[in-house]
Every structure is written in structure tokens, then in C-alpha cells.
């Protein structure tokens, strides 16, 4: 439920802004000059705000398409990300966005046309080559789809750009926007999973594993290419059993032959983000666990991290060919 919508005064008449206002007729509208006035002040507490985030409608004037961090990719040579949104409907304890932003408000950049122009320019810098564009870096690609209508705009645009590969990354079941369009060869819809027990404890408001699998199945039947993201892999005393059960559940539902990619990565966070997360959730067991800091990153102690990834890789090998599997070792 959105009770307050902050709108940059220059966007008052923007068609997407008008449409969103019509959707939330009882929301209080607050005008600001630039979204940073609301989003960036120091005296904000992400955790307190997360109980009732507002929506900020803004224009992104620059830096719309960014080089993806090394190791983020799933094959191919050129990787970029673009963020039409900052922050997310869900509330995952490990989410690095809490360390990155002071505010939990959802920022929606409504100048989609400018994003698309930059995507075309970036693509043109690699003539004849495939270029990946990731949309779920600073948000969940689909969770706020009924408001953002991201798919309605971007998918038809990408349809005309066969060398531009788009990855939507999500934990949501908002697939209606995709299902009403024909499946596209250059779009991968990637769903992230942790075992149900872990998800229930750490991924607040995220649909259950089975609900997400049901959404994936609908997409797979409609011909969409799907990705699986087991990232972050989370430790618990019985993680082996938890991940064994998760993989069994996932691959009992989906047709492996139609999967685009599977990636896996252990829990890791830049040290500064980790410190912020501990400050926000000092009693969270995940952050009290067997972690170490090295080279500015916090991750599981070396032997444990390796053991977990090796175990999951071996288990996955029972279901998928090696060529589908990509390690994720990028730093957020």
C-alpha cells in the first residue's frame, strides 16, 4: 500500500506519473525539486522506513546504463545494468540495498525513453556482438510491475534489438505482464531462490518457493527462457539437506532442457554495507554466523564457503549440464 507519493515537480504532467497518480487516488502527493532531497538525507533509518515505504517518481538525468561488476554475467563478453527502480517491495535481511541506500522508499525513474536511448547507444558501441543488459541490480525487476509497467514498455523495445540481451531478475510472481506478450529469444527471466526455511526466515514478504516455481512453470509453458539464481547460498547447520530438497523441488517442476542458465554464489557483502546491515539488524543470526572479512568483503569463512559452493555445484550436476552453470563471484 502506498500512502505517500513524492513527485519531482518537473514531472507533474509526465504520462507515467499521471497514470500512477490515477492508480493511487487516495495517496498524499508531495512535490520535491529533485528526488535526492527525499531519498538521500543522512537522518534516515532504512529499517524504520521499510515498515511503510513511500513511492518517489523521479527522472534519471545521467548514468542510466552502467558497466556490470566483474563476475556478474552469465556468458557473453559485454555486460551492463540499468536501474529503472531503486529499492524493492521485499525485505531480504541480506539485501545489499540496505547498505547502499539510507532510504527504503521506492524510487521509480519514469524516463524510460531515455534509458532505452542509452541502451541503444551502448549496443551500438559493440556492433554485431551480443550485449547483456541486467535490470534487477538495484531492485527486483518485476515485483512492482503493476505500478512500473516496465515490461509493457521495455519488452517491445528489446524485441527490435536481437543483439541486446535482457535479464529480468526477480523473486516475485508478477508474470502477467510477460504472459500477455509473446516469448522473446533475447530475454531471460531469472528467479532467485534459497531453501524455503531460509526464505521464510530471511526473505520477508517474498512469495514461497512453490509459488515462484508455479510462476516459472507458466512462463516456461509460454516459451520464455528462464534462469535460476541460487545466490546467495546461505549457511545453516543442515544446509546440505535444505539445498538438496530445494534442488529436488525446483527440478521436479521445471523442464531442464528449456532452462537458459543457472548461477550460484555464496553470501558476500562489501564490508561497509555489512556494517550497516549489522547496525540495522544487530540481532540477526545470519550476521552473527561464521563470516570473515578479507579484502574489503565479508563472506563465509574460506573452507565453509568453498564447501558450500562445491556441495551445491555437485548437487546441481545431478540435474543440469555443466554448460548451464555460472559461478557468481561479483561484489555488490
Amino acid at each position, binding site marked *: 500500500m502506498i500512502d505517500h507519493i513524492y513527485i519531482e515537480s518537473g514531472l507533474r504532467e509526465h504520462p507515467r506519473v499521471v497514470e500512477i497518480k490515477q492508480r493511487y487516488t487516495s495517496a498524499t502527493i508531495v512535490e520535491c525539486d529533485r528526488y535526492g532531497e527525499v531519498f538521500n538525507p543522512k537522518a534516515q533509518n532504512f529499517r524504520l522506513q521499510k515498515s511503510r515505504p513511500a513511492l518517489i517518481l523521479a527522472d534519471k538525468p545521467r548514468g542510466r546504463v552502467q558497466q556490470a561488476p566483474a563476475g556478474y554475467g552469465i556468458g557473453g563478453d559485454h555486460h551492463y545494468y540499468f536501474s529503472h527502480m531503486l529499492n524493492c517491495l521485499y525485505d531480504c535481511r541480506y539485501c545489499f540495498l540496505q547498505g547502499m541506500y539510507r532510504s527504503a522508499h521506492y524510487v521509480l525513474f519514469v524516463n524510460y525513453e531515455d534509458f532505452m536511448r542509452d541502451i541503444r547507444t551502448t549496443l551500438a558501441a559493440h556492433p554485431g556482438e551480443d550485449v547483456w543488459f541486467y535490470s534487477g541490480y538495484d531492485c527486483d525487476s518485476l515485483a512492482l510491475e503493476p505500478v512500473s509497467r516496465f515490461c509493457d514498455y521495455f519488452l517491445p523495445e528489446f524485441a527490435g534489438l536481437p543483439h541486446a540481451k535482457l535479464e529480468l531478475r526477480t523473486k516475485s510472481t508478477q508474470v502477467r505482464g510477460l504472459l500477455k506478450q509473446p516469448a522473446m529469444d533475447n530475454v531471460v527471466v531469472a528467479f532467485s531462490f534459497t531453501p524455503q526455511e531460509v526464505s521464510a526466515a530471511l526473505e520477508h514478504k517474498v512469495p514461497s518457493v512453490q509459488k515462484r516455481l508455479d510462476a516459472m512453470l507458466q512462463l516456461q509453458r509460454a516459451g520464455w527462457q528462464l534462469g535460476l539464481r541460487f545466490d546467495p547460498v546461505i549457511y545453516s547447520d543442515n544446509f546440505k539437506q535444505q539445498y538438496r530438497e530445494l534442488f529436488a523441488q525446483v527440478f521436479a517442476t521445471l523442464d531442464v532442457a528449456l532452462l537458459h542458465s543457472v548461477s550460484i554464489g555464496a553470501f558476500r557483502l562489501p564490508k561497509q554495507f555489512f556494517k550497516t546491515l549489522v547496525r540495522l539488524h544487530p540481532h*540477526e543470526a545470519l550476521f552473527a554466523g561464521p563470516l570473515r572479512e578479507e579484502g574489503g568483503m565479508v563472506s563465509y569463512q574460506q573452507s565453509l564457503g568453498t564447501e558450500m559452493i562445491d556441495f551445491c555445484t555437485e548437487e546441481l550436476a545431478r540435474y543440469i549440464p555443466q554448460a548451464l552453470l555460472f559461478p557468481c563471484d561479483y561484489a555488490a
Partner: protein
Amino acid sequence: MSINLVVALMPEAKPLISHFDLAAVNTRSPLPVFQRDGIRLIVSGIGAAAAAAATGYLFAQQQQRDLAWLNVGVAGHGCLAIGEGRLIHKISEHNSGRNWFPPQTLKLGVASDALNSVSRIERRYAQPQFYDMEAAAYYATACRFSSGELVQCFKIVSDNPSHPVDAVNADTARTLIGAQMKSLDRVVTALSALSDTAIKAVTEPAALDACLSRWSFTVTQQNQLYRLLQRLEILEPAPANKAPDLGHCQSATAVLAALNRQVNQLFVQP
């Protein structure tokens, strides 16, 4: 309950003092302060400097971060009817052109509005918003001590284009605030509950004081000690959690090493 109320004038304060049954504290204090059960009220006087000074003074008395703060007062408005009360979601400082946006996280169904903090009494009411003389200075000051979600303003319309400010007197202010006491009570309760959540999130580990008084830790070591004790409490919750056995330790370094060992023993290796 823990909340600080900042009010410009005594007639505005009186209904709050009476409703929350507050008693005057320290009659030699430079500003009138009233208190009971975690609710403190200060009467600042009119204007930005007075509001900032009173807010700073109240913080200095308590030295507690993340307390709830509420500025209550009557104010002019460009169009709302006399007696209407609102939380404030945008504060503009007329002189500097600066804006603040107090995050609206209270789920109370209390409407909110924008406010312009001016340095002289407003008689033109050019915009459909509140006009006051304290909120910007109060908010900017209180946000040095608490997160913005915990710093709120509640304003009640005392004058508007058809009821000029000259007709407002002590009686009007007292009556108008008294009539909004139900909403104010809800805001005070919800805001102090939110502050309790923020403060509780940083409860100190039980064994911290004992360790600090027995061994001498550097500042960095104190931080390490704090987190190690906290991790032990999380990983081995009561009743299994007993005070860590550190009696044999000769130094702070030995304490930290022992705690590290104790924490690592709690993980089942795969």
C-alpha cells in the same frame, strides 16, 4: 514511552501538560520543562533560534539518540479550516529555500500536509500549506539526534485567509490544541513506540559492563568485544546462554581470543 515535545508557547503547552499529567522539573532551568513517564515537554518561545535552542537543550539533558520528537503548535494555513490538524510531510524554510521531508511511517490514518517556516508572521497565505516560525529549525536540530522517521510535527490551523492571525490569542491556541488531543495522543503513542523499536535494536550485551570494568580495552577492542558478546547471545540464546567463562583471562586480548574461540565452536562444520 519516551518522547520529547517541543512547543512554542505556554498556552499551546497547557492542554498537553494537562492531558499527559506532566509536572514541572527543575524550576531553575532556562526554559520551562515538564515531564512524566518518559514524556518531556519544553516550551521554546517563538521563532527559529528559540526552537533550535530548546531542542538542543532537551537533547543535552538526556544524551539519548533515537528518541522520538514531536513539535506541536498552532499555525496559519492557506486553505484548511480552523481547527484542522495535520502531520507535516514537507518543511520548507522560506529564508534559505531548503526543504526537509519528514518520512511518514506512522500508520495512523492522520492526514499530512506541507509547511513553510517563515521568519515573520504570515498574513498572505500564498500557498495551500501551513505557515509557522519554528518547524524548520526544530526539525534540522532534532535530526542531529534522531532519525527523521522519529522527528515529526503536528500543526493545527489557527488562522487562514478568512480568519486572520490577529484574532488568535492564548485562549484560541489552548482550545484548538485541546480539541486535537485524541489525534495527538495517538501520534505520541505511535511515535514513542517507533522510537522504542529503534532504541531496543541496540540493546547492549548483558556481559559487556562486567568485561569493561575488569579488563582494559582499547576503543577498537571495545567494538570487537561488543560484537563478540552480541554474537554469542544470538547464536546461543537463553537458557543455553550463560555468561562467557573468562575468569582465567589475563588481558583484554586474551578475552577477545577466548570469545572468538567460543563463538567459532558454535558452528557445526559441514
